[in-house]
């Protein structure tokens, strides 16, 4: 059996009486897109925080490439190969698009302790950043202030920054959020290819995208995984239909 690239093993997290994660075990295999769906308040964001760092599970472990990363802070998980995108774009708005991508490249390179040479004269960083921008189609906007980008372009940049890290696994929190039909379609295509570079744990509300992309889907309700399976299995699952999908499937 091949080992999962990324896995949570029985993680639970409570806030007072609220069980935000209840014995959640999810794994991400090489080359796949594993989507996590569920109604609002199901604990998806809490789960992501526990996977990426920032929130420590009460019990259970998070493993990346077989290593236990449960106790690592966010930045060390990123160094270990976790590439994350945010639901609400977390970009340096005052900086240019290129600077945001270079920041990612700098993180990937791991040494920000250089105080003299201009960062935008570092050819290695520039190459990595430009390559990522080209892949998402933002190369012509490199010099644009990020604040001036459209919402869709910010979503693209969000993905580009994650790309610069050359991660071993992606964790994407609603990358389609706020994108129009056209934008969603393009990003869906893009993610479809990206899975071959590194598998993607995808939290997404856009069901068209999820059904088009996911190799496996896990459904989270009240902090619990009520089902995991292929698109067909999930569509056919009665519990899932009752709890979440309703008529959509």
């Amino acid at each position, binding site marked *: 059996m091949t080992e999962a690239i990324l896995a949570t093993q029985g993680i639970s997290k409570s806030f007072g009486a609220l069980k935000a994660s209840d014995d959640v075990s999810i794994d991400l295999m090489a080359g796949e897109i594993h989507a996590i769906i569920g109604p609002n308040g199901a604990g998806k964001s809490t789960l992501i925080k526990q996977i*990426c*760092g*920032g929130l420590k599970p009460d019990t259970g472990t998070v493993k990346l490439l077989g290593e236990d990363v449960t106790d690592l*802070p*966010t*930045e*060390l998980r*990123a*160094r270990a190969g*976790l*590439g*994350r995108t*945010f639901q609400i774009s*977390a*970009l*340096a*708005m*005052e*900086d*240019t698009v290129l*600077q*945001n991508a*270079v*920041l*990612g490249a*700098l*993180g*990937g390179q*791991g*040494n*920000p*302790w*250089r*105080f*003299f*040479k*201009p*960062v*935008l004269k*570092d050819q290695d*960083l520039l190459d990595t950043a430009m390559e990522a921008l080209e892949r998402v189609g933002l190369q012509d906007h490199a*010099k644009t*202030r990020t604040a001036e980008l459209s919402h869709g372009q910010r979503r693209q940049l969000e993905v580009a*920054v994650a790309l*610069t*890290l050359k991660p071993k696994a992606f964790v994407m929190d609603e990358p389609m959020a706020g994108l129009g039909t056209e934008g969603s379609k393009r990003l869906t295509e893009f993610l479809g290819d990206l899975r071959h570079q590194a598998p993607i744990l995808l939290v997404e509300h856009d069901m068209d995208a999820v059904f088009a992309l996911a190799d496996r889907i896990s459904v989270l309700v009240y902090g619990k995984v009520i089902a995991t399976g292929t698109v067909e299995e999930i569509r056919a699952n009665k519990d899932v239909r009752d709890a979440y999908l309703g008529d959509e499937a």
Partner: protein
Amino acid sequence: MTRETLFNSAALAALALVPLWAHFSGEPFTVTLATRAVILALAAVGLHIALGLGGLVSLGHAVFFGIGGYAMGILAHHAQTYTPLMEWPFVIEGTKSMPVIWLVAVVLSSVVAYFIGLLSLRTSGVYFIMITLAFGQMFFFFAISWSAYGGEDGLSIYVRNGFPGVNTLVPIQFYALCFVILAAVMFFAARLQRSPFGLALNAARQVPDRVETVGLNPMRLRLVAFVLSGAITGLAGALFADLNRFVSPTMFSWQMSGELIIFIILGGLGRLYGPVVGAVVFVALEHILGDLSDYWHIYLGVLLLGVVLFARGGIIGMLLGREVAHD
């Protein structure tokens, strides 16, 4: 050349030429005033690295200013009284040499900034302001009760300290020394702003979450910025004490910390030349308005209110508009 670089060059040229003109037209007091402005500008450029780049509103930067001041005061005091600073386990003598004093000022401020940063950077926002203020007050009251070095009265130094090849007793020569230091520090600060560290620090101010998720530690970036910032303000403190040939607990006061912030806001937050323009304008106003009334701070208050309400980018922002992203 953009309008911004044009303005900056003009500001720097004015700083170089006006005192020179004052010197030749026999107005040494103006030279001294300019020296005061340049040294305060240096202190505020130090704060700019923490506040402007790092977003750290430190209301305790007088700590470093005071440490620089007392480093100068204590070393020179022992040199002029021919008493060693300490005798056990090894003898340390005082000194009247500026380079040595500066080194001590910078090292001490850095070490103190490291420990203050380590504790206060765990907090943010209003709590960070309060905890840095608290550290400032600790040092202030310590200095007041430190009777070995003058306590409340401070320490007077009879003769200004020396620098090889410069007659520091001549106002224009001491001014030139301070100006060169300011220019050199600004050169490095400008490089820093564009360096990998500068990019990461700037991002840590805007989106700390992002910085973490690309594998960098925002806290460590801020800590290093805080140390660099403290070191520069400490150096300015040593120069300031040398200018006045006097150091007192006032250098540690929270009003001093507040003035450094005022320089930055007055001149323009986020811009390297902001603290410089702010300090120069402040010193000029202090002089001009001070002649008009003992209560000149009222006018300063009105001016500050105006700047904060109507010109968020400070004086430079008013003249040049919002800063464009650097390329």
